[in-house]
């Protein structure tokens, strides 16, 4: 995923913008009409996402193992894309996850949400629903109490199915 400008689909953007504008989920009117009433615009690249990631890692080496990111490869409803993030290694009193962030690279605000856990949680497994403005990489970072930073990343094709949605 490098060039994002050339493959933008109009409907992709419209529906995604409507989703971020907050109207789409309300089911009001055709997508085009919704899109005209939002200022939502995608990031032009992953620079802000990279900055957020670097800030989170704070200099620690980022490991691409131990964290799972589940999301559909095809997002046919950009207003509600289910995303699950979970640490796959055992959570123990000695090794537990204190924080997770989810980044949607090209959303107007790439930081989608943040989770904090405690030693009492005994687990690190969360699912939320995101609105995505267009096809993009989605990533998650997890901070382990021992200082390690774990990372997972998936690309999602946002392609609303149409037919008067």
């Amino acid at each position, binding site marked *: 995923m490098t060039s994002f400008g050339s493959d933008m689909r109009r409907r992709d953007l419209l529906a995604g913008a409507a989703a971020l504008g907050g109207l789409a*989920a309300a089911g009001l009117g055709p997508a085009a009409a919704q899109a005209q009433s939002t200022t939502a615009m995608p990031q032009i690249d992953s620079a802000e996402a990279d900055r957020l990631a670097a800030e989170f890692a704070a200099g620690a080496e980022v490991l691409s193992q131990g964290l799972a990111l589940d999301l559909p490869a095809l997002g046919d409803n950009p207003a509600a894309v289910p995303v699950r993030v979970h640490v796959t290694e055992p959570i123990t009193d000695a090794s537990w996850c204190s924080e997770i962030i989810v980044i949607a690279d090209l959303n107007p605000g790439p930081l989608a949400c943040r*989770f904090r856990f405690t030693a009492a949680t005994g687990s690190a497994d969360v699912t939320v629903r995101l609105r995505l403005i267009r096809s993009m990489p989605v990533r998650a970072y997890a901070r382990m109490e021992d200082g390690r930073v774990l990372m997972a990343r998936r690309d999602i094709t946002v392609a609303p199915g149409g037919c008067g949605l």
Partner: protein
Amino acid sequence: MARPPRIWISNETPAPGEIVRVRAQMVHVMESGLRLDASGQTVPQDILTGFTASLGDSLLLEWTPEMAISQNPYIEFTFAARHSGRLRMVWTDRRGVVAQADRDVTVG
């Protein structure tokens, strides 16, 4: 508040250490702040800003949603049931606490 949050919990009487799964969803407009109204004015942002889950005195989870979270925010999480207590979930937005839900968890 249109209605209380919807809660599902995989087991309210878990074995010690059992991983309990929780689903929670509340009604919230999640206005992104990017939308224009009919007169072309920006509709002010109005999103959920925080969610916490605790079991008795133990904090389990803090969630900080941003505007990318879908309308009627949904969260699913797990925790290890190490002691009995009241599972309390609290939702806040700019106005303060907007919803709360409690479930008693009895570890047996």
